[in-house]
């Protein structure tokens, strides 16, 4: 789907969309869920969705915006880094907009081209195998951003902090899975808030093409993602699945405090 929209119309649309984001500035954070080979990809922190790719094959950073889909080359002077958070950048969208590129959507991928040069923003490769919390956040920085937005129940956090018996949490998830993108950051926030509790956490990324190709998920009969297996003394004592992810701290507190024997 290629969009040919007069530049003047795009200028007006971009100006109107940027006026809703306050002070003509859009904040973006590094993303691991979309990737361009040889470039860093940033995604808007708040909707509407926008991407910044830098460097790009076109010589300057490419800024891709939605509603309607549009892409343009950006003057690097319009980009600034957040002093407090190096993973956050700001793009100044004020003033006239120019240097538009041809852009189209092919499935989940965005294809940008001009003068025979092409750039593809693809879904990033899935995160596979066992990962620590730090590794998970490093690979999927948007999980930390979404974790910061979640407010866990204080009483449930207190219950988790009082856990004395060493407990293992094995979290099965897919970096490609939309439900995991919503749910796992909540658990990340909970784990950050109960730091110091004897909870050993491993995140296990499974492939996109089915769990049958992941022996661990198959052996443990994982039927949905995300799923947490709660283990004590190397034995499974409980699972957190489905609706239990709505408030993972409450579900975990209930499971860890009085785990049902399976």
């Amino acid at each position, binding site marked *: *789907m290629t969009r040919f929209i007069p530049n003047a119309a795009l200028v007006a*649309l971009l100006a*109107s*969309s940027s006026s*809703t*984001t*306050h002070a003509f500035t859009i904040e973006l954070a590094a993303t691991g869920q979309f990737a361009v080979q040889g470039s860093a990809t940033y995604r808007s922190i*708040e*909707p*509407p*969705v926008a991407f910044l790719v830098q460097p790009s094959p076109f010589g300057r950073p490419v800024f891709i*915006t*939605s*509603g*309607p*889909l549009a892409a343009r080359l950006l003057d690097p002077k319009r980009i600034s880094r957040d002093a407090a958070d190096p993973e956050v950048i700001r793009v100044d969208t004020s003033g006239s907009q120019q240097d538009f590129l041809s852009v189209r*959507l092919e*499935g*989940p991928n*965005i294809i940008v081209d001009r003068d025979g040069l092409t750039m593809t923003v693809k879904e990033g490769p899935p995160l596979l195998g066992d990962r620590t919390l730090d590794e998970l956040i490093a690979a999927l920085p948007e999980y930390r951003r979404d974790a910061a937005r979640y407010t866990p129940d204080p009483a449930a956090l207190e219950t988790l902090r009082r856990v004395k018996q060493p407990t293992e949490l094995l979290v099965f998830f897919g970096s490609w899975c*939309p439900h995991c993108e*919503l749910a796992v950051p909540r658990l990340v926030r909970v784990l950050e808030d109960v730091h110091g509790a004897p909870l050993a956490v491993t995140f296990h990324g499974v492939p996109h093409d089915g769990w049958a190709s992941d022996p661990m998920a198959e052996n443990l009969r994982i039927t949905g993602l995300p799923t947490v297996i709660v283990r004590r003394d190397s034995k499974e004592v409980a699972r957190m699945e489905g*609706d239990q992810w*709505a*408030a993972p701290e409450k579900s975990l507190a209930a499971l860890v405090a009085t785990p049902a024997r399976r």
Partner: protein
Amino acid sequence: MKLGTPGVVAACLLGAVLLLAAYAKAIDPHGFAVRLGDVVPVPDAIAYPGALVIVAFEAGLGAALLGGSRHPLVLLLTTATFLAFVGIVAWQLVRPDGVAACGCFGQLLERTPRQALYEDVAFAALSGLAWLGRTARSGVFRPGPSVLGAGASVALALFAPWLPLDDQATALAPGASVEATQLDGIVPELRAGRHLVLLLDRADPTTRTRIAHLNERLKLPHGATAVWGFADDNPGLAAAFLWSAGPAFEVRSVAPRMLRRLYRTLPRSALLDAGHVVATWSGFPSDATLDTLARGELP
């Protein structure tokens, strides 16, 4: 008490149940056709006409019973109908992928399959009681009430999409808790505070063009009222909608069966406050309402 009295009461009760069941289906015939497809594997082309036939049958039978007819054919059909319901609901219970909620009354009275089973067994037993004390007069079949009931129910079903019955026909109605909508399982934030919920059809071009207007009117993404969009779980459409419409709010994917409980036609909107639905709109709220919400006030 005469022997005929329990029979008359049972017949009238079953007649009322069947009429209520027909009404519940007739106010959302397309939704009933979808549920029918969940229960019985029928082609889409047959599901809607089949739904209309069932509505007409239930209303016709109910009207006959309420009209005082206890003709053997009427009573046999009544017993057979409730036994069929018992069978269908029992099958839902044993099926590994059985529907989560069912019953004769749609969203008017939503039950689990187990509750519906007990209820249908009771109605089947009641249909046996209706045979008691039949007289020569009550054994006559007068077609008038049945024709009237069936005709009225089909007319209601045909015109229902244009009638303001969304709140009756769906689980998204003023006064309903957010738990009843099941949307809190996807967005737990809905359990507290004030939220505008938009049920969207990602494939609808009019909805896509309307999103920019909503963004601007509600001063999103930093407006005073939180906004959440919900749409069918279709990854292909999700990406196209996200980039072409540019919603300045989160749009979450929902299993079609779950979303279908909340609307008859899309788009549909609702305002949630403190964990309860306080207002609903067919389509999007008016500009005046959006301006009120943008100021953080209740419309």
